[in-house]
């Protein structure tokens, strides 16, 4: 495709119809600016939640009370979880990169409903502010953990209702964004872009969006039911009122397990864009990767019960959910094999985005394989509610979604801002973050296997070695992330001007200017071939 590079074009960042600067952001319906609004919001909340995580690790440096008491610790891990899950990880990749790059990758000028898109961000901010208020309003920070399990969440005197309402509102943002993306993909693909000519990041966003639209209402209703139980004494979950606490866990995980796929599917989509570009080779198994996203979304719907093996659900339910948990590993493994096969025999260019993507595979594999330990009925009982689960979860969510997010930032930063970051510093930040991550989380597998419970602020002395190593890892990790953020800020302000296609990519995002113009394309492109078609230099 012809490049549309032109010197007289105004980029979306230079397009400022309002005199007051902030209005160009909060009134803009441009999908790229909305993507950046999400990015900045998420970064602010990430720093807050990461700081809370660091406080938790400092508390556990030694047995007994170190820097906070037990109730404060309960509040801190709940706030850490609520911010990380509902405000950062669930919207994260889809809201930032989905908004910014989905229309560009399918050859569209914007999403199908731009005003609804901006409205979704407003709802997101309203929910996020409410979540913050819940931490500081009188009554104290909620102490139920991000899972809000009843009967405790129905009885706790802390600000549980505020937090539940926040999660409920955030869910609306997620539903509307998903709806917008589904319609965009169905209606706004460029001429000639059939389903199997669509790049794989939009495929992953498509699968994610369906989960957002179909699963989120269930948790919304469930959270409302808890509020109704607390305020109106309706017995949904409290046995004293004739309810059943296990019903809450069913309803909560019917959403919250698919929500893990809301988090991880776009991450898989991001690295799927990176591997072909930095191997200069077509993606291996395009159809298998595309359909495995849909398969993960579909099968992932029916595995929620593996969070409940020890709650007293029936034998046959346990058997059923355990079996399906093993089945859902298959499409995930298909993707991993295809990514590795894409690199095999390619002209590998080990730039920061590829480093982060390879880091993603390594950590996601550890998370995935330890997930099988949790999916198996016998071993699950042994490690249930131990730090083994915490380690597994963080390897999947942070090692998976988080590393893919950073991979995506390093990959698309030149396109988003038209500037380059320092490659050497990016490599250093990756190495420090990768080491810090493993030093932080791997010991939790070991002490978890030895019986260290999760969510405890105190512990027996025999677990101290694991906690000390883990806390040291937390500091290393924070240093790595700080260097990365510093590199991005420095790059955005003082970095070299980025060319339109610094990585020699072949998807539509690399055929337009850096940063893109307001409407992305001078003319809507006509697609005549599959994505990831790399041509030899003489052909190009």
């Amino acid at each position: 495709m012809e490049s549309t590079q032109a010197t007289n074009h105004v980029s979306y960042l230079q397009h400022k119809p309002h005199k007051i600067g902030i209005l160009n952001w909060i009134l803009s319906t441009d999908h790229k600016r909305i993507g950046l609004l999400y990015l900045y919001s998420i970064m602010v909340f990430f720093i807050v939640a990461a700081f809370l995580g660091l406080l938790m690790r400092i508390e556990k440096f030694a047995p007994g009370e170190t820097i906070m008491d037990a109730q404060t610790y309960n509040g801190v891990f709940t706030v850490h979880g609520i911010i990380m899950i509902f405000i950062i990880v669930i919207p994260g990749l889809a809201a930032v990169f989905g908004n910014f790059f989905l229309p560009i990758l399918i050859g569209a000028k914007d999403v199908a409903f731009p005003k609804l898109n901006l409205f979704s961000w407003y709802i997101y901010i309203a929910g996020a502010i409410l979540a913050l208020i819940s931490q500081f309003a009188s009554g104290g920070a909620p102490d139920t953990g991000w899972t809000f399990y009843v009967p405790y969440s129905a009885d706790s005197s802390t600000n549980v209702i505020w937090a539940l309402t926040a999660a409920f509102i955030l869910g609306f943002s997620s539903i509307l964004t998903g709806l917008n993306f589904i319609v965009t993909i169905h209606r706004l693909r460029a001429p000639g872009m059939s389903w199997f000519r669509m790049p794989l990041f939009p495929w992953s966003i498509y699968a994610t969006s369906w989960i957002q639209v179909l699963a989120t209402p269930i948790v919304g209703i469930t959270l409302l039911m808890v509020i109704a139980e607390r305020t109106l004494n309706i017995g949904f979950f409290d046995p004293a009122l004739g309810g059943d606490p296990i019903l809450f866990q069913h309803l909560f995980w019917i959403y919250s397990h698919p929500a893990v796929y809301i988090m991880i599917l776009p991450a898989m989509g991001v690295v799927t864009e990176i591997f072909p570009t930095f191997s200069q080779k077509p993606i291996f198994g395009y159809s298998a990767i595309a359909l495995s996203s849909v398969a993960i979304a579909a099968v992932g719907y029916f595995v929620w019960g593996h969070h409940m093996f020890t709650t007293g659900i029936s034998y046959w339910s346990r058997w059923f959910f355990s079996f399906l948990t093993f089945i859902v590993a298959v499409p995930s493994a298909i993707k991993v094999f295809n990514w590795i096969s894409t690199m095999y025999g390619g002209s590998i260019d080990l730039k920061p985005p590829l480093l982060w993507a390879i880091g993603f595979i390594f950590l996601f594999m550890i998370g995935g394989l330890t997930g099988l330990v949790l999916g198996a009925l016998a071993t699950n009982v042994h490690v249930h509610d131990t730090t083994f689960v915490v380690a597994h979860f963080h390897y999947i969510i942070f090692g998976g979604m988080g590393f893919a997010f950073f991979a995506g930032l390093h990959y698309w930063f030149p396109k988003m801002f038209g500037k380059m970051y320092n490659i050497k510093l990016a490599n250093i930040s990756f190495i420090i973050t990768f080491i810090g991550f493993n030093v932080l989380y791997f010991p939790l597998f070991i002490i978890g296997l030895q019986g260290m419970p999760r969510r405890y602020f105190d512990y027996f002395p025999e677990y101290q070695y694991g906690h000390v190593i883990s806390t040291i890892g937390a500091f290393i990790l924070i240093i790595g992330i700080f260097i990365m953020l510093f590199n991005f800020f420095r790059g955005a302000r003082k970095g070299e001007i980025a060319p339109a296609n610094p990585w020699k990519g072949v998807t539509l995002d690399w055929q337009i200017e850096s940063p893109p113009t307001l409407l992305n394309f001078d003319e809507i492109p006509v697609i005549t071939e599959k994505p990831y078609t790399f041509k030899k230099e003489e052909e190009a």
Partner: protein
Amino acid sequence: MEDKKHHISSFNSLLMVLIGLFIMTGISVMITEIHFSTFSVGVALLLASIKGYLVLTYFMHLKYDEPIFRIMVFLILLLFAIVIGITFIDYLLR
């Protein structure tokens, strides 16, 4: 061409559906006085399903839309039914 695709429902038919929904809501409330034991949830879901059917069919124009939309709605309802079914089967097998 476009006009042919859009069915405009008459006021009377919409009014009839609205009255039907009010009646069903009244029944939903009144029926709580009757104890159906293990079937109480099932009866409530049945009434809710009928109301949902009326809304989807007439208010949301599914009856007059392309078959693909009916198929998609059916698949989503099937998914929901399976999820609810699995949950309640767990109760029966405990």
